[in-house]
Protein backbone atom coordinates (compact mmCIF):
# COMPACT_ATOMS: atom_id res chain seq x y z
CA UNK A 1 0.00 0.00 0.00
CA UNK A 2 1.74 3.12 -1.21
CA UNK A 3 -0.09 5.27 1.34
CA UNK A 4 2.03 3.80 4.09
CA UNK A 5 5.22 3.87 2.09
CA UNK A 6 7.79 5.54 4.29
CA UNK A 7 9.95 6.40 1.29
CA UNK A 8 7.13 8.13 -0.50
CA UNK A 9 6.51 10.35 2.50
CA UNK A 10 10.16 11.09 3.03
CA UNK A 11 10.34 12.08 -0.66
CA UNK A 12 7.45 14.46 -0.10
CA UNK A 13 8.78 15.91 3.13
CA UNK A 14 12.21 16.34 1.61
CA UNK A 15 10.88 18.36 -1.28
CA UNK A 16 8.60 20.44 0.94
CA UNK A 17 11.25 20.95 3.58
CA UNK A 18 13.73 22.02 0.92
CA UNK A 19 12.08 25.38 0.82
CA UNK A 20 10.61 25.94 4.25
CA UNK A 21 9.90 29.62 3.88
CA UNK A 22 8.00 29.25 0.66
CA UNK A 23 6.10 26.27 1.98
CA UNK A 24 5.14 28.33 5.00
CA UNK A 25 3.98 31.29 2.90
CA UNK A 26 1.89 28.94 0.81
CA UNK A 27 0.36 27.45 3.90
CA UNK A 28 -0.46 30.88 5.27
CA UNK A 29 -3.23 31.30 2.71
CA UNK A 30 -4.91 28.08 3.75
CA UNK A 31 -4.30 28.73 7.44
CA UNK A 32 -6.06 32.09 7.23
CA UNK A 33 -8.83 30.65 5.10
CA UNK A 34 -9.40 27.89 7.63
CA UNK A 35 -9.42 30.40 10.50
CA UNK A 36 -12.02 32.47 8.67
CA UNK A 37 -14.14 29.43 7.87
CA UNK A 38 -14.10 28.12 11.41
CA UNK A 39 -14.70 31.54 12.96
CA UNK A 40 -17.65 32.16 10.67
CA UNK A 41 -19.12 28.74 11.38
CA UNK A 42 -18.41 29.02 15.08
CA UNK A 43 -19.95 32.48 15.19
CA UNK A 44 -23.14 31.46 13.45
CA UNK A 45 -23.36 28.31 15.56
CA UNK A 46 -22.83 30.48 18.60
CA UNK A 47 -25.64 32.75 17.57
CA UNK A 48 -27.94 29.82 17.02
CA UNK A 49 -26.92 28.34 20.38
CA UNK A 50 -27.40 31.73 21.97
CA UNK A 51 -30.96 32.01 20.74
CA UNK A 52 -31.64 28.46 21.86
CA UNK A 53 -30.30 29.25 25.30
CA UNK A 54 -32.37 32.40 25.59
CA UNK A 55 -35.52 30.58 24.63
CA UNK A 56 -34.67 27.48 26.59
CA UNK A 57 -37.70 26.43 28.57
CA UNK A 58 -40.12 28.21 26.30
CA UNK A 59 -42.01 25.75 24.20
CA UNK A 60 -41.36 26.88 20.67
CA UNK A 61 -44.51 25.29 19.35
CA UNK A 62 -46.92 27.18 21.52
CA UNK A 63 -49.63 29.77 21.21
CA UNK A 64 -51.74 32.00 23.42
CA UNK A 65 -55.46 32.44 23.11
CA UNK A 66 -57.58 35.13 24.75
CA UNK A 67 -61.06 36.56 24.37
CA UNK A 68 -62.05 40.01 23.11
CA UNK A 69 -65.21 41.68 21.86
CA UNK A 70 -67.08 40.46 18.81
CA UNK A 71 -66.85 42.51 15.65
CA UNK A 72 -69.71 40.88 13.76
CA UNK A 73 -73.36 40.35 14.73
CA UNK A 74 -74.42 36.69 14.84
CA UNK A 75 -77.51 34.70 15.81
CA UNK A 76 -79.31 37.71 17.15
CA UNK A 77 -76.34 38.97 19.15
CA UNK A 78 -75.15 42.45 18.38
CA UNK A 79 -71.54 43.22 17.63
CA UNK A 80 -69.35 44.43 20.45
CA UNK A 81 -70.36 41.66 22.83
CA UNK A 82 -67.63 40.79 25.38
CA UNK A 83 -66.68 37.10 25.26
CA UNK A 84 -65.75 35.51 28.57
CA UNK A 85 -63.99 32.12 28.54
CA UNK A 86 -64.93 29.60 31.19
CA UNK A 87 -62.59 27.16 32.90
CA UNK A 88 -64.50 24.27 31.37
CA UNK A 89 -63.29 25.43 27.94
CA UNK A 90 -59.82 24.23 28.86
CA UNK A 91 -61.10 20.72 29.49
CA UNK A 92 -63.21 20.71 26.35
CA UNK A 93 -60.32 21.85 24.16
CA UNK A 94 -57.90 19.38 25.68
CA UNK A 95 -60.39 16.59 25.17
CA UNK A 96 -61.48 17.41 21.64
CA UNK A 97 -58.26 18.58 20.06
CA UNK A 98 -55.72 15.83 20.49
CA UNK A 99 -52.83 17.86 19.08
CA UNK A 100 -52.82 19.93 22.26
CA UNK A 101 -49.99 18.85 24.50
CA UNK A 102 -50.22 21.20 27.45
CA UNK A 103 -52.96 23.67 28.15
CA UNK A 104 -52.48 26.16 30.97
CA UNK A 105 -55.48 28.32 31.82
CA UNK A 106 -54.79 31.66 33.39
CA UNK A 107 -56.82 34.39 35.00
CA UNK A 108 -55.71 37.92 35.67
CA UNK A 109 -56.77 40.24 38.44
CA UNK A 110 -58.26 43.45 37.11
CA UNK A 111 -58.47 44.18 33.42
CA UNK A 112 -55.98 42.81 30.88
CA UNK A 113 -52.50 44.24 31.48
CA UNK A 114 -54.01 46.01 34.45
CA UNK A 115 -52.09 46.46 37.66
CA UNK A 116 -53.09 45.72 41.20
CA UNK A 117 -51.47 47.23 44.25
CA UNK A 118 -49.45 44.71 46.23
CA UNK A 119 -48.64 45.71 49.81
CA UNK A 120 -45.92 44.69 52.17
CA UNK A 121 -44.89 46.52 55.36
CA UNK A 122 -46.05 49.87 54.08
CA UNK A 123 -44.37 49.41 50.71
CA UNK A 124 -46.36 48.99 47.54
CA UNK A 125 -45.89 47.69 44.04
CA UNK A 126 -48.23 48.00 41.08
CA UNK A 127 -48.10 44.45 39.75
CA UNK A 128 -49.97 42.21 37.41
CA UNK A 129 -51.49 39.36 39.39
CA UNK A 130 -52.11 36.03 37.67
CA UNK A 131 -53.91 32.92 38.74
CA UNK A 132 -51.99 30.08 37.11
CA UNK A 133 -51.83 26.33 36.75
CA UNK A 134 -48.40 24.91 37.61
CA UNK A 135 -48.15 23.42 34.12
CA UNK A 136 -47.60 26.94 32.73
CA UNK A 137 -44.01 26.16 33.65
CA UNK A 138 -43.94 23.52 30.89
CA UNK A 139 -44.71 26.15 28.29
CA UNK A 140 -42.81 29.12 29.64
CA UNK A 141 -40.11 28.08 32.04
CA UNK A 142 -39.59 30.60 34.81
CA UNK A 143 -35.99 31.20 35.72
CA UNK A 144 -36.15 31.15 39.52
CA UNK A 145 -33.57 33.11 41.42
CA UNK A 146 -34.80 31.78 44.71
CA UNK A 147 -37.35 29.28 46.01
CA UNK A 148 -39.66 27.29 43.77
CA UNK A 149 -42.52 27.70 41.36
CA UNK A 150 -46.18 26.86 42.09
CA UNK A 151 -46.89 23.13 42.24
CA UNK A 152 -49.78 20.69 42.25
CA UNK A 153 -50.04 20.72 46.04
CA UNK A 154 -50.54 24.47 46.06
CA UNK A 155 -53.28 23.94 43.51
CA UNK A 156 -55.01 21.06 45.31
CA UNK A 157 -55.03 22.76 48.68
CA UNK A 158 -55.60 26.24 47.28
CA UNK A 159 -52.64 27.41 49.29
CA UNK A 160 -52.18 31.10 49.68
CA UNK A 161 -48.73 31.18 48.17
CA UNK A 162 -47.22 33.29 45.42
CA UNK A 163 -44.19 33.61 43.19
CA UNK A 164 -43.08 37.16 42.55
CA UNK A 165 -40.95 38.79 39.91
CA UNK A 166 -37.55 40.27 40.60
CA UNK A 167 -38.92 43.75 39.94
CA UNK A 168 -41.69 43.23 42.47
CA UNK A 169 -39.11 42.02 44.96
CA UNK A 170 -37.05 45.15 44.49
CA UNK A 171 -40.05 47.36 45.19
CA UNK A 172 -41.22 45.48 48.24
CA UNK A 173 -37.98 44.41 49.88
CA UNK A 174 -34.61 45.83 50.82
CA UNK A 175 -31.60 44.72 48.93
CA UNK A 176 -30.35 41.30 50.05
CA UNK A 177 -33.42 40.92 52.25
CA UNK A 178 -34.81 37.39 52.40
CA UNK A 179 -38.29 37.31 50.87
CA UNK A 180 -39.07 33.60 50.93
CA UNK A 181 -41.63 32.89 53.61
CA UNK A 182 -42.67 36.54 53.91
CA UNK A 183 -46.20 37.68 53.21
CA UNK A 184 -47.56 40.18 50.73
CA UNK A 185 -51.13 41.53 50.71
CA UNK A 186 -53.24 41.65 47.58
CA UNK A 187 -56.80 42.97 47.76
CA UNK A 188 -56.80 42.32 51.48
CA UNK A 189 -55.61 38.72 51.19
CA UNK A 190 -52.18 37.63 52.44
CA UNK A 191 -49.98 35.41 50.28
CA UNK A 192 -46.81 33.67 51.34
CA UNK A 193 -43.88 34.11 48.96
CA UNK A 194 -42.38 30.76 47.84
CA UNK A 195 -40.26 31.90 44.92
CA UNK A 196 -38.69 34.80 43.07
CA UNK A 197 -38.16 34.61 39.34
CA UNK A 198 -36.07 36.50 36.87
CA UNK A 199 -37.93 37.51 33.73
CA UNK A 200 -36.42 36.51 30.40
CA UNK A 201 -35.15 39.71 28.80
CA UNK A 202 -35.59 38.44 25.29
CA UNK A 203 -38.98 36.82 25.39
CA UNK A 204 -41.23 38.45 27.88
CA UNK A 205 -44.92 37.83 27.77
CA UNK A 206 -45.86 38.29 31.42
CA UNK A 207 -44.15 41.58 32.11
CA UNK A 208 -41.45 42.32 34.62
CA UNK A 209 -43.51 43.07 37.65
CA UNK A 210 -45.85 40.16 38.20
CA UNK A 211 -47.20 37.94 40.95
CA UNK A 212 -48.31 34.35 40.33
CA UNK A 213 -50.74 32.55 42.61
CA UNK A 214 -52.39 29.16 42.14
CA UNK A 215 -55.50 29.27 39.97
CA UNK A 216 -57.65 27.60 42.60
CA UNK A 217 -56.48 30.04 45.27
CA UNK A 218 -57.29 32.90 42.93
CA UNK A 219 -60.84 31.60 42.46
CA UNK A 220 -61.46 31.45 46.20
CA UNK A 221 -59.63 34.59 47.23
CA UNK A 222 -61.04 36.87 44.56
CA UNK A 223 -64.31 35.09 43.77
CA UNK A 224 -63.63 34.68 40.07
CA UNK A 225 -65.85 31.66 39.83
CA UNK A 226 -65.37 29.60 36.69
CA UNK A 227 -64.06 32.49 34.62
CA UNK A 228 -60.84 32.07 32.67
CA UNK A 229 -58.76 34.90 31.19
CA UNK A 230 -56.57 33.25 28.62
CA UNK A 231 -54.76 30.07 27.76
CA UNK A 232 -51.21 29.19 27.05
CA UNK A 233 -51.15 26.12 24.83
CA UNK A 234 -48.35 23.99 23.50
CA UNK A 235 -49.02 21.57 20.67
CA UNK A 236 -47.54 18.16 19.95
CA UNK A 237 -44.19 18.16 18.20
CA UNK A 238 -44.49 17.80 14.41
CA UNK A 239 -47.80 19.59 14.48
CA UNK A 240 -48.39 22.89 12.77
CA UNK A 241 -49.39 25.48 15.33
CA UNK A 242 -51.54 27.36 12.82
CA UNK A 243 -53.69 24.29 12.19
CA UNK A 244 -54.31 23.75 15.90
CA UNK A 245 -54.90 27.46 16.30
CA UNK A 246 -57.73 27.47 13.78
CA UNK A 247 -59.25 24.31 15.30
CA UNK A 248 -59.29 25.94 18.73
CA UNK A 249 -60.84 29.12 17.39
CA UNK A 250 -63.46 27.21 15.46
CA UNK A 251 -64.45 25.26 18.51
CA UNK A 252 -64.62 28.35 20.72
CA UNK A 253 -66.54 30.38 18.13
CA UNK A 254 -69.08 27.59 17.94
CA UNK A 255 -69.42 27.42 21.69
CA UNK A 256 -69.84 31.16 22.22
CA UNK A 257 -72.03 31.81 19.18
CA UNK A 258 -69.48 33.90 17.38
CA UNK A 259 -69.80 34.60 13.67
CA UNK A 260 -67.32 32.28 11.89
CA UNK A 261 -65.99 35.24 9.90
CA UNK A 262 -65.36 37.27 13.04
CA UNK A 263 -61.58 37.73 13.21
CA UNK A 264 -61.48 39.80 16.36
CA UNK A 265 -63.60 38.04 18.94
CA UNK A 266 -60.82 35.65 19.87
CA UNK A 267 -57.26 36.86 19.97
CA UNK A 268 -54.24 34.63 19.62
CA UNK A 269 -50.53 34.78 19.28
CA UNK A 270 -48.50 32.10 17.57
CA UNK A 271 -45.11 31.90 19.26
CA UNK A 272 -43.82 29.34 16.77
CA UNK A 273 -43.73 32.05 14.09
CA UNK A 274 -41.15 33.95 16.10
CA UNK A 275 -39.09 30.83 16.49
CA UNK A 276 -39.40 29.93 12.84
CA UNK A 277 -38.21 33.37 11.86
CA UNK A 278 -35.24 33.14 14.17
CA UNK A 279 -34.25 29.67 13.08
CA UNK A 280 -34.66 30.68 9.45
CA UNK A 281 -32.41 33.64 10.16
CA UNK A 282 -29.71 31.61 11.88
CA UNK A 283 -30.05 28.92 9.20
CA UNK A 284 -29.41 31.44 6.43
CA UNK A 285 -26.56 32.89 8.44
CA UNK A 286 -24.99 29.45 8.79
CA UNK A 287 -25.39 28.77 5.09
CA UNK A 288 -23.83 32.09 4.11
CA UNK A 289 -20.93 31.59 6.53
CA UNK A 290 -20.25 28.14 5.15
CA UNK A 291 -20.39 29.39 1.58
CA UNK A 292 -18.08 32.34 2.23
CA UNK A 293 -15.73 30.15 4.26
CA UNK A 294 -15.49 27.49 1.57
CA UNK A 295 -14.82 30.09 -1.09
CA UNK A 296 -12.04 31.54 1.05
CA UNK A 297 -10.67 28.05 1.43
CA UNK A 298 -10.83 27.57 -2.31
CA UNK A 299 -8.80 30.76 -2.77
CA UNK A 300 -6.24 29.44 -0.30
CA UNK A 301 -5.96 26.10 -2.06
CA UNK A 302 -5.62 27.81 -5.44
CA UNK A 303 -2.68 29.74 -3.98
CA UNK A 304 -1.10 26.39 -3.16
CA UNK A 305 -1.63 25.22 -6.70
CA UNK A 306 0.03 28.39 -7.96
CA UNK A 307 3.07 27.94 -5.80
CA UNK A 308 3.32 24.29 -6.80
CA UNK A 309 3.20 25.34 -10.45
CA UNK A 310 6.16 27.61 -9.87
CA UNK A 311 7.89 24.86 -7.94
CA UNK A 312 7.35 22.41 -10.78
CA UNK A 313 8.89 24.88 -13.19
CA UNK A 314 11.89 25.27 -10.91
CA UNK A 315 12.18 21.55 -10.52
CA UNK A 316 11.99 20.82 -14.23
CA UNK A 317 15.48 19.44 -14.25
CA UNK A 318 14.99 17.37 -11.13
CA UNK A 319 11.80 15.90 -12.51
CA UNK A 320 13.59 15.18 -15.79
CA UNK A 321 16.34 13.34 -13.93
CA UNK A 322 13.78 11.33 -12.00
CA UNK A 323 12.04 10.43 -15.24
CA UNK A 324 15.33 9.37 -16.81
CA UNK A 325 16.05 7.21 -13.77
CA UNK A 326 12.76 5.43 -14.17
CA UNK A 327 10.04 7.47 -12.49
CA UNK A 328 6.81 6.77 -14.33
CA UNK A 329 4.40 9.65 -15.01
CA UNK A 330 2.10 8.18 -12.38
CA UNK A 331 4.78 8.34 -9.71
CA UNK A 332 5.62 11.95 -10.54
CA UNK A 333 1.97 12.90 -10.56
CA UNK A 334 1.30 11.20 -7.27
CA UNK A 335 4.17 12.98 -5.61
CA UNK A 336 3.00 16.45 -6.68
CA UNK A 337 -0.62 15.77 -5.71
CA UNK A 338 0.45 14.42 -2.33
CA UNK A 339 2.56 17.49 -1.78
CA UNK A 340 -0.53 19.58 -2.43
CA UNK A 341 -2.57 17.50 0.00
CA UNK A 342 0.15 17.57 2.63
CA UNK A 343 0.48 21.34 2.59
CA UNK A 344 -3.29 21.81 2.60
CA UNK A 345 -4.06 19.37 5.38
CA UNK A 346 -1.21 20.53 7.57
CA UNK A 347 -2.15 24.16 7.07
CA UNK A 348 -5.80 23.29 7.60
CA UNK A 349 -5.06 21.72 10.95
CA UNK A 350 -3.00 24.68 12.07
CA UNK A 351 -5.74 27.07 11.00
CA UNK A 352 -8.32 24.93 12.71
CA UNK A 353 -6.37 24.88 15.96
CA UNK A 354 -5.91 28.67 15.89
CA UNK A 355 -9.59 29.27 15.18
CA UNK A 356 -10.75 26.88 17.88
CA UNK A 357 -8.45 28.69 20.30
CA UNK A 358 -10.01 32.02 19.37
CA UNK A 359 -13.51 30.61 19.73
CA UNK A 360 -12.68 29.18 23.14
CA UNK A 361 -11.33 32.56 24.22
CA UNK A 362 -14.47 34.31 23.00
CA UNK A 363 -16.60 31.74 24.82
CA UNK A 364 -14.67 32.46 27.98
CA UNK A 365 -15.27 36.18 27.57
CA UNK A 366 -18.99 35.79 26.97
CA UNK A 367 -19.43 33.48 29.91
CA UNK A 368 -22.45 31.48 30.95
CA UNK A 369 -24.80 34.18 32.15
CA UNK A 370 -25.21 36.55 29.32
CA UNK A 371 -28.26 37.86 27.58
CA UNK A 372 -26.53 38.51 24.27
CA UNK A 373 -27.47 35.81 21.82
CA UNK A 374 -24.01 34.25 21.62
CA UNK A 375 -23.27 31.06 23.42
CA UNK A 376 -20.87 28.15 23.04
CA UNK A 377 -19.28 29.23 19.77
CA UNK A 378 -17.98 25.98 18.26
CA UNK A 379 -18.01 24.04 15.05
CA UNK A 380 -19.82 20.75 15.03
CA UNK A 381 -18.13 17.47 14.15
CA UNK A 382 -20.04 17.14 10.85
CA UNK A 383 -19.07 20.69 9.89
CA UNK A 384 -15.48 19.88 10.71
CA UNK A 385 -15.56 16.69 8.66
CA UNK A 386 -17.27 18.35 5.70
CA UNK A 387 -14.74 21.18 5.74
CA UNK A 388 -11.83 18.79 5.79
CA UNK A 389 -13.21 16.50 3.12
CA UNK A 390 -13.88 19.52 0.92
CA UNK A 391 -10.44 20.87 1.60
CA UNK A 392 -8.67 17.62 0.76
CA UNK A 393 -10.89 17.15 -2.28
CA UNK A 394 -10.07 20.64 -3.51
CA UNK A 395 -6.37 20.13 -2.89
CA UNK A 396 -6.41 16.93 -4.94
CA UNK A 397 -8.24 18.58 -7.83
CA UNK A 398 -6.06 21.64 -7.74
CA UNK A 399 -2.88 19.66 -7.15
CA UNK A 400 -3.60 17.91 -10.44
CA UNK A 401 -2.86 21.12 -12.34
CA UNK A 402 0.83 21.30 -11.36
CA UNK A 403 1.00 17.50 -11.40
CA UNK A 404 -0.08 17.36 -15.02
CA UNK A 405 2.37 20.11 -15.83
CA UNK A 406 5.11 18.04 -14.23
CA UNK A 407 4.13 14.97 -16.24
CA UNK A 408 4.25 16.94 -19.46
CA UNK A 409 7.92 17.66 -18.87
CA UNK A 410 9.83 15.48 -21.29
CA UNK A 411 13.02 14.16 -19.77
CA UNK A 412 14.93 15.08 -22.91
CA UNK A 413 13.87 18.70 -22.62
CA UNK A 414 14.57 18.82 -18.94
CA UNK A 415 18.04 17.41 -19.39
CA UNK A 416 19.09 19.57 -22.29
CA UNK A 417 22.29 21.33 -21.39
CA UNK A 418 22.02 25.09 -21.39
Amino acid at each position, binding site marked *: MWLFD*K*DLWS*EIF*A*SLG*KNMFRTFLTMLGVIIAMVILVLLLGGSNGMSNGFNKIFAGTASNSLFVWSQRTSEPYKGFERGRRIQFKLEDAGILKEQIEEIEVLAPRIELGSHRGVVTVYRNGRTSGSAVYGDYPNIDDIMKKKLVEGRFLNENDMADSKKVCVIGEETYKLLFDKEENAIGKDVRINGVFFNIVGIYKPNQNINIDGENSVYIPFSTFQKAFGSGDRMGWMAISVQPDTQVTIVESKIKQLLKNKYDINPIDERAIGSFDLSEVFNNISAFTGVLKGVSFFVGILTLLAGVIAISNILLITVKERT*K*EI*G*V*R*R*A*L*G*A*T*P*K*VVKRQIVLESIMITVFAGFIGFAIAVGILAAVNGMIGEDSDIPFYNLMVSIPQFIISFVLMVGLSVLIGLIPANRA*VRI*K*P*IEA*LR*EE
Partner: protein
Amino acid sequence: MIEIKDLHKSYKMGSNSLHVLKGINFSVEEGELVAIMGSSGSGKSTLLNILGMLDNSDSGEYILDGVPIKNLNETKAAQYRNKFLGFVFQSFNLINYKSALENVALPLYYQKVGRKERLEKSLKYLDQVGLKEWAEHLPSELSGGQKQRVAIARAMAAEPKVLLADEPTGALDSKTSYEVMDLIQKINDQGNTILIVTHEPDIADMCKRIVHLKDGVIIEDKKIKQVRAEQYV
Protein backbone atom coordinates in the same frame (compact mmCIF):
# COMPACT_ATOMS: atom_id res chain seq x y z
CA MET B 1 23.38 -6.09 -26.79
CA ILE B 2 22.42 -3.13 -28.95
CA GLU B 3 21.35 -3.46 -32.54
CA ILE B 4 20.41 -0.51 -34.69
CA LYS B 5 19.28 -0.74 -38.29
CA ASP B 6 18.71 2.16 -40.65
CA LEU B 7 17.79 4.65 -37.96
CA HIS B 8 16.37 7.97 -39.14
CA LYS B 9 15.46 11.01 -37.19
CA SER B 10 14.53 14.50 -38.29
CA TYR B 11 13.32 17.54 -36.39
CA LYS B 12 10.76 19.96 -37.67
CA MET B 13 12.08 23.49 -37.58
CA GLY B 14 9.18 25.61 -38.69
CA SER B 15 8.42 24.83 -42.35
CA ASN B 16 11.58 22.88 -43.16
CA SER B 17 12.76 19.80 -41.34
CA LEU B 18 16.24 19.02 -40.17
CA HIS B 19 17.42 15.56 -40.98
CA VAL B 20 19.69 14.70 -38.06
CA LEU B 21 20.19 10.95 -38.36
CA LYS B 22 20.32 9.64 -41.88
CA GLY B 23 20.33 5.90 -41.57
CA ILE B 24 22.50 4.67 -38.74
CA ASN B 25 23.52 1.04 -38.65
CA PHE B 26 25.58 -0.36 -35.86
CA SER B 27 25.60 -2.89 -33.12
CA VAL B 28 27.25 -3.15 -29.76
CA GLU B 29 28.27 -6.41 -28.15
CA GLU B 30 28.15 -7.10 -24.49
CA GLY B 31 31.15 -5.78 -22.61
CA GLU B 32 32.12 -3.19 -25.19
CA LEU B 33 33.28 0.31 -24.35
CA VAL B 34 32.26 2.49 -27.25
CA ALA B 35 33.02 6.16 -27.81
CA ILE B 36 30.64 8.03 -30.06
CA MET B 37 32.45 10.99 -31.50
CA GLY B 38 31.53 13.84 -33.70
CA SER B 39 31.39 17.60 -33.82
CA SER B 40 28.33 19.39 -32.58
CA GLY B 41 25.45 18.92 -34.95
CA SER B 42 26.75 15.55 -36.06
CA GLY B 43 23.80 13.83 -34.41
CA LYS B 44 25.67 12.09 -31.63
CA SER B 45 23.46 13.47 -28.84
CA THR B 46 20.31 12.63 -30.78
CA LEU B 47 21.59 9.09 -31.20
CA LEU B 48 22.27 8.82 -27.51
CA ASN B 49 18.79 10.17 -26.68
CA ILE B 50 17.23 7.54 -28.89
CA LEU B 51 19.41 4.84 -27.37
CA GLY B 52 18.35 6.16 -23.95
CA MET B 53 14.65 6.04 -24.91
CA LEU B 54 14.44 9.71 -24.16
CA ASP B 55 13.52 10.34 -27.76
CA ASN B 56 11.84 8.33 -30.51
CA SER B 57 13.25 7.60 -33.93
CA ASP B 58 11.23 8.26 -37.06
CA SER B 59 12.08 4.98 -38.69
CA GLY B 60 14.47 2.12 -38.26
CA GLU B 61 14.96 -0.63 -35.78
CA TYR B 62 16.35 -0.54 -32.28
CA ILE B 63 16.73 -3.75 -30.37
CA LEU B 64 18.09 -3.64 -26.85
CA ASP B 65 19.06 -6.95 -25.29
CA GLY B 66 16.65 -8.72 -27.59
CA VAL B 67 13.76 -6.37 -26.81
CA PRO B 68 12.52 -4.24 -29.71
CA ILE B 69 12.18 -0.65 -28.59
CA LYS B 70 9.28 0.76 -30.53
CA ASN B 71 6.28 2.96 -29.81
CA LEU B 72 6.78 3.10 -26.08
CA ASN B 73 4.43 5.14 -23.98
CA GLU B 74 5.88 7.24 -21.20
CA THR B 75 5.23 4.70 -18.50
CA LYS B 76 6.76 1.83 -20.45
CA ALA B 77 9.73 3.96 -21.48
CA ALA B 78 10.32 4.90 -17.84
CA GLN B 79 10.23 1.25 -16.82
CA TYR B 80 12.61 0.21 -19.61
CA ARG B 81 14.99 3.03 -18.79
CA ASN B 82 14.96 1.96 -15.22
CA LYS B 83 15.53 -1.68 -16.05
CA PHE B 84 17.96 -1.49 -18.99
CA LEU B 85 19.83 1.76 -18.82
CA GLY B 86 22.05 3.82 -16.57
CA PHE B 87 22.61 7.46 -17.35
CA VAL B 88 25.61 9.65 -16.69
CA PHE B 89 25.25 13.31 -17.66
CA GLN B 90 27.71 16.05 -18.37
CA SER B 91 26.32 18.23 -15.57
CA PHE B 92 25.94 15.28 -13.16
CA ASN B 93 22.24 16.00 -12.51
CA LEU B 94 22.28 14.92 -8.92
CA ILE B 95 19.26 15.95 -6.85
CA ASN B 96 20.63 18.74 -4.74
CA TYR B 97 18.61 18.20 -1.60
CA LYS B 98 19.42 14.52 -1.35
CA SER B 99 22.58 13.04 0.08
CA ALA B 100 25.00 11.12 -2.14
CA LEU B 101 23.59 7.88 -0.79
CA GLU B 102 19.99 8.88 -1.45
CA ASN B 103 20.89 9.95 -4.97
CA VAL B 104 22.44 6.57 -5.68
CA ALA B 105 19.38 4.86 -4.19
CA LEU B 106 16.90 6.72 -6.39
CA PRO B 107 16.77 4.28 -9.35
CA LEU B 108 16.36 1.44 -6.86
CA TYR B 109 13.48 3.33 -5.28
CA TYR B 110 11.78 3.44 -8.64
CA GLN B 111 12.48 -0.29 -8.98
CA LYS B 112 10.55 -0.67 -5.72
CA VAL B 113 13.50 -2.20 -3.93
CA GLY B 114 12.95 -2.26 -0.18
CA ARG B 115 14.52 0.48 1.87
CA LYS B 116 17.10 -1.57 3.70
CA GLU B 117 18.31 -3.48 0.67
CA ARG B 118 18.31 -0.29 -1.34
CA LEU B 119 20.57 1.56 1.05
CA GLU B 120 22.90 -1.42 1.42
CA LYS B 121 23.24 -1.74 -2.32
CA SER B 122 23.73 1.98 -2.76
CA LEU B 123 26.45 2.01 -0.15
CA LYS B 124 28.16 -0.84 -1.95
CA TYR B 125 28.21 1.12 -5.21
CA LEU B 126 29.34 4.28 -3.46
CA ASP B 127 32.17 2.19 -2.04
CA GLN B 128 33.06 1.02 -5.53
CA VAL B 129 33.49 4.60 -6.70
CA GLY B 130 35.46 5.33 -3.54
CA LEU B 131 32.99 7.62 -1.89
CA LYS B 132 31.73 5.54 1.01
CA GLU B 133 32.77 8.18 3.53
CA TRP B 134 30.85 10.83 1.61
CA ALA B 135 27.56 8.95 1.68
CA GLU B 136 25.76 11.45 3.88
CA HIS B 137 27.06 14.54 2.10
CA LEU B 138 24.94 16.70 -0.13
CA PRO B 139 26.04 17.20 -3.74
CA SER B 140 26.92 20.81 -2.94
CA GLU B 141 29.59 19.54 -0.56
CA LEU B 142 31.27 17.43 -3.23
CA SER B 143 33.81 18.34 -5.92
CA GLY B 144 32.95 17.97 -9.61
CA GLY B 145 34.81 14.68 -9.89
CA GLN B 146 33.13 13.34 -6.79
CA LYS B 147 29.72 14.37 -8.11
CA GLN B 148 30.35 12.52 -11.35
CA ARG B 149 31.46 9.46 -9.43
CA VAL B 150 28.24 9.60 -7.42
CA ALA B 151 26.35 9.88 -10.71
CA ILE B 152 28.19 6.82 -12.04
CA ALA B 153 27.36 4.92 -8.86
CA ARG B 154 23.74 5.94 -9.34
CA ALA B 155 23.77 4.75 -12.93
CA MET B 156 25.30 1.43 -11.85
CA ALA B 157 23.07 0.87 -8.85
CA ALA B 158 20.16 -0.34 -10.92
CA GLU B 159 22.49 -2.87 -12.58
CA PRO B 160 21.61 -1.80 -16.10
CA LYS B 161 22.40 -3.63 -19.31
CA VAL B 162 24.01 -0.56 -20.81
CA LEU B 163 25.58 2.53 -19.30
CA LEU B 164 25.04 5.66 -21.38
CA ALA B 165 27.34 8.57 -20.66
CA ASP B 166 26.78 11.91 -22.32
CA GLU B 167 30.02 13.89 -22.20
CA PRO B 168 30.79 12.53 -18.73
CA THR B 169 34.04 14.51 -18.56
CA GLY B 170 32.75 17.63 -20.26
CA ALA B 171 32.56 19.63 -17.07
CA LEU B 172 35.75 18.32 -15.50
CA ASP B 173 39.44 19.26 -15.69
CA SER B 174 41.73 16.72 -17.36
CA LYS B 175 43.07 15.17 -14.17
CA THR B 176 39.58 14.59 -12.83
CA SER B 177 38.49 13.45 -16.28
CA TYR B 178 41.10 10.73 -16.22
CA GLU B 179 40.01 9.65 -12.77
CA VAL B 180 36.46 9.32 -14.01
CA MET B 181 37.61 7.47 -17.13
CA ASP B 182 39.68 5.17 -14.94
CA LEU B 183 36.52 4.38 -13.02
CA ILE B 184 34.56 3.81 -16.22
CA GLN B 185 37.25 1.50 -17.55
CA LYS B 186 37.19 -0.51 -14.36
CA ILE B 187 33.44 -0.85 -14.56
CA ASN B 188 33.86 -1.98 -18.16
CA ASP B 189 36.49 -4.47 -17.05
CA GLN B 190 33.79 -6.14 -14.98
CA GLY B 191 31.91 -6.82 -18.19
CA ASN B 192 29.51 -3.88 -18.35
CA THR B 193 28.56 -2.43 -21.70
CA ILE B 194 29.23 1.30 -21.85
CA LEU B 195 28.58 3.96 -24.49
CA ILE B 196 30.23 7.34 -24.14
CA VAL B 197 29.44 10.39 -26.18
CA THR B 198 32.42 12.69 -26.31
CA HIS B 199 34.20 15.11 -28.54
CA GLU B 200 37.54 14.81 -26.75
CA PRO B 201 39.97 12.52 -28.64
CA ASP B 202 41.95 11.59 -25.52
CA ILE B 203 38.78 10.39 -23.81
CA ALA B 204 37.77 8.47 -26.93
CA ASP B 205 41.16 6.80 -27.00
CA MET B 206 40.47 5.33 -23.60
CA CYS B 207 37.58 3.34 -25.05
CA LYS B 208 37.85 0.11 -27.01
CA ARG B 209 36.02 1.26 -30.08
CA ILE B 210 35.35 4.63 -31.69
CA VAL B 211 32.31 5.38 -33.79
CA HIS B 212 32.66 8.60 -35.70
CA LEU B 213 29.55 10.49 -36.69
CA LYS B 214 29.36 13.27 -39.22
CA ASP B 215 26.22 14.91 -40.60
CA GLY B 216 24.00 12.13 -39.41
CA VAL B 217 25.94 9.16 -40.78
CA ILE B 218 28.67 6.96 -39.40
CA ILE B 219 31.82 7.75 -41.29
CA GLU B 220 34.17 5.61 -39.29
CA ASP B 221 33.77 2.65 -36.94
CA LYS B 222 37.02 1.17 -35.67
CA LYS B 223 38.29 -0.94 -32.84
CA ILE B 224 41.30 0.55 -31.11
CA LYS B 225 43.85 -0.40 -28.57
CA GLN B 226 42.64 1.01 -25.30
CA VAL B 227 44.71 3.63 -23.50
CA ARG B 228 44.46 2.94 -19.78
CA ALA B 229 43.59 6.01 -17.76
CA GLU B 230 45.37 4.63 -14.73
CA GLN B 231 48.75 5.84 -15.90
CA TYR B 232 47.58 9.47 -15.82
CA VAL B 233 46.03 9.34 -12.42
